[in-house]
């Protein structure tokens, strides 16, 4: 009993330590920039202000950037779920020539970092005249080797007896996929959906160079653009308010979906 109490105390202490930087960011976001420039310890003097948040919300473009981030994140998540599910089903259940080779090629995509293809990708979207558009922000994220791998493994784990019974009953391949197998993959879909949404929401580099018109900025690019040249010194409070603002949606998502996120992380690690 004593040992378990000690463990709980240690875990609680570790959790508090993890919280300190977040609380520090929140506290700084409620301080005047001029005070922080002279001394960040002024956070303890009790004088707080909402000016940084007022300045953030006073920029009308912020709501456009949130909207863009939502469109891109939901669009990418939906696209990845559709494509990865179809591909996973195909690799797990359908027999076709070159399947194993194709699967290996898809998996090789996991080894190619984004930095290696960014110039070619940029040129391609440039030739297509698609920069500064939602498709340009969404489409590159749809090639998701991890998603295909995850869904393939998940479909493989479902007993084939289900397919065979349905085939005997005259069901088509699509009916088997759509009505029988897909509902069984909801946990995997949740895993993949959460990871894809988080990736899309936090992505900075590709939106930075593809969305150069501020009306097409995502939230990450937009709030970075509002920083002054010496933001970390002259606008520290504003910078922290931006961090809180950008992180808040993810925090809310986590609060509501923490059960699924924990399952997703555990599932992805175990698979």
């Amino acid at each position: 009993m004593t040992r378990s109490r000690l463990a709980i105390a240690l875990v609680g202490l570790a959790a508090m330590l993890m919280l300190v930087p977040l609380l520090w960011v929140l506290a700084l976001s409620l301080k005047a920039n001029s005070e922080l420039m002279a001394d960040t310890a002024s956070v303890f003097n009790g004088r707080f202000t909402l000016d940084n948040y007022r300045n953030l919300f006073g920029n009308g473009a912020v709501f456009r950037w949130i909207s863009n981030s939502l469109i891109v994140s939901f669009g990418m998540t939906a696209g990845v779920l559709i494509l990865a599910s179809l591909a996973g089903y195909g690799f797990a259940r359908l027999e076709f020539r070159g399947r194993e080779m194709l699967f290996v090629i898809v998996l090789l995509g996991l080894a190619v970092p984004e930095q290696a293809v960014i110039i070619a990708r940029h040129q391609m979207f440039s030739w297509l005249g698609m920069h500064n558009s939602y498709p340009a922000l969404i489409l590159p994220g749809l090639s998701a080797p991890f998603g295909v791998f995850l869904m393939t493994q998940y479909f493989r784990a479902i007993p084939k007896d289900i397919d065979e019974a349905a085939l005997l009953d005259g069901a088509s391949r699509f009916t088997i996929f759509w009505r029988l197998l897909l509902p069984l993959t909801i946990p995997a879909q949740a895993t993949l959906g959460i990871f894809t949404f988080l990736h899309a929401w936090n992505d900075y580099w590709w939106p930075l160079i593809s969305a150069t018109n501020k009306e097409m900025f995502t939230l990450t690019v937009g709030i970075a653009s509002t920083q002054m040249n010496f933001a970390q010194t002259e606008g520290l409070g504003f910078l922290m308010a931006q961090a809180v603002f950008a992180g808040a949606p993810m925090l809310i998502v986590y609060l509501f979906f923490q059960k699924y996120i924990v399952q997703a992380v555990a599932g992805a690690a175990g698979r």
Partner: protein
Amino acid sequence: MRALWLLPLALLAGCSDAKPDKTRLVIQRFFGACEAEYGRVADIAGAEGECGIMTAMINRFEAENPDIDLVENIVFWPGYDQLTAQLAANDAPDLVTMHGSVIPDYQARNLLEPLDADLAAIGAPPARFTSAARAAVTVDGHAWGLPIDTWAPLWHINLNLFRKAGLVRGGKPILPRSPEELYAQAQQFRDRTGKPYLVQGAANEYAGFTRNFYTFVMQQNGALFRNGRANFRTAEGRNALQLFKTIYDRDFTTKNQDYSAAVAGFLNGDGGVFLVGTWMVGTFDAKSRETSGALANGGYTVMPYPRLFQRAATFADGHNWVMPRNSRRTPEERAAAMRFLKFFAGHARHWARTGHLPAFQAIIDSAEWRALPHRDNLAILATTAQPLPKEVRRQFPLETIVGTEAASAISGAKPIDRTLSNMERRVNDVLDNL
């Protein structure tokens, strides 16, 4: 679930805001966004700070030019990744803010439009610029931009501590005229105040080392670059590094502070002289008008770097408006861009309130500008501020190489001669592989 997937497509359909009856002008700039405070402000004279003044100027231009649909892209400093991407996509803005040190990188690749005739046509020919501003935009005999300002590192001085140290005469700070005088004054300062003479942001911040190195080599008439290649293994280079190594070894400077900590340290009276650029003049001057604090009651002034060697010189850079090439730009859009540049040149005196040095000599000579706090001290920079030669490309990455190497010599991690050798080799590696 199906409806959710269709939502993005539905939202996609409703996103277009073209204004076909107006000429579209796209300008791209850094200096931050401050729409909450200045989003509707068109009174330029009432605006403060880089962001405020820039935003008010753009608002005023929009108000006075209703036939132009001005699209303002505000980028995270310095924004060159985005610009490069835009140029690759032939979707470059009509006007972009660009450092003078970066202009040759784009000009050499034929990515900028020369503006000689346009500048003359809008009444802002290069002859009206200061020599520093003219040098910033001139490459191969052509002007490639409208200069916004010149900035240089300065000696920001805590006059209250200087008085305590006995280094004020007639209300003016006594500045050194040689390295030996600097050491003596720094020793006197330490003896009487118990604090280091210099405040420097030296941790994770290499630009300051580079600016100091360039400045004091320039003061010895040293040639930092010859025929576009680094030339650091010189007596002048050695002297410049030795100067700051001695300052470091004898504890005449604060140590291990990053930029933010150094700003806070100077505001809190940690030392006598803060080596930082023109952009902090307004902030420190405002602090000196308060009644409490280390700079209170007029306890602040600012001077160019003192002349410690043969001649007065300070390394400088500056901000400029340039026009990237864009084959899709129409004559009407180009004309709108020129109207913007003419407007900006006509209101350049307002930008001078940021603390940066004006780009137009007439403004520096004006009583209005001289009446601004400390500007009389800084006017000399119009002739002593000196950018690197234009044939030196990739000046931003070179700054990091020079700064990291200089830092290792000053801290004693590497002998000065080996540092200069490494610095020169690494810089030439970059320049040889352009």
